[in-house]
């Protein structure tokens, strides 16, 4: 199986997740206003397409990895599965005991995949550190973290512009601008951190 370079993998995931953001903000809300069942299903499930592509990419990456990389992926997936299981059982017990006033189960279900991805990344990072593999940010093979932050910030700016000029939706515009600002701040933080590290290594 052809090995995906880390940079190529990062680029593909970034594009897929950017499409996901745009679909979640611009297409998914249409499902609530649609009256017919078929368009409702199509609008509701459209954001799943980039997620399925991301899962396929992950599978391809893991299968084409070497034995040490596969081990770190396995540890990451184990951590992700454990975190998601604990989260689900907490929500399940609380829901069964009618702790929530309204049915929030579907809202929680939307967070399962992001939670799985975040905990998988954290677990994999810890495992990689254990085996002396550098963090992604320092690795020249990977796309720099600040580039990812600025890219996603730009995607949110586009969403904000679309929402403002196309539909005049102030709620979406302010949400997208807020996200873009936060991500741009994150990008600046990683630029400064990278600059300080390179300065320290030169000294």
């Amino acid at each position: 199986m052809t090995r995906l370079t880390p940079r190529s993998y990062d680029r593909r995931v970034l594009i897929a997740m950017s499409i996901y953001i745009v679909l979640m903000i611009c297409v998914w809300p249409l499902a609530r206003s649609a009256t017919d069942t078929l368009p409702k299903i199509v609008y509701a499930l459209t954001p799943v397409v980039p997620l399925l592509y991301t899962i396929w990419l992950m599978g391809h990456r893991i299968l084409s990895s070497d034995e040490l990389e596969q081990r770190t992926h396995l540890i990451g997936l184990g951590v992700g599965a454990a975190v998601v299981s604990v989260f689900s059982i907490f929500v399940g017990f609380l829901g069964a005991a009618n702790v929530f006033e309204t049915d929030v189960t579907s809202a929680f279900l939307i967070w399962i995949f992001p939670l799985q991805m975040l905990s998988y990344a954290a677990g994999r990072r810890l495992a990689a550190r254990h085996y002396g593999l550098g963090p992604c940010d320092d690795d020249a093979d990977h796309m720099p973290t600040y580039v990812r932050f600025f890219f996603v910030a730009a995607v949110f700016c586009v969403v904000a512009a679309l929402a403002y000029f196309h539909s005049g939706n102030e709620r979406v515009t302010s949400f997208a601008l807020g996200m873009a600002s936060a991500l741009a701040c994150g990008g600046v933080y990683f630029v400064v951190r990278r600059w300080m590290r390179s300065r320290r290594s030169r000294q």
Partner: protein
Amino acid sequence: MNNKLRELREQRGWSQGELAERLDVSRQTVNAIETSKYDPSLPLAFRIAKLFRQQIEQIFEP
């Protein structure tokens, strides 16, 4: 487990990236083996031994 991988690689003038390519693993895996942070599986140890034309026990010592 200690090993002589770095020594053997440097004798041949290969970079970690070049050795990784010959073994079909990542550069980081070569680095982890060289620094004894990761012990390779038996099939990979055999590939390393075959590449350097040595016995496994001549490269890896417990």
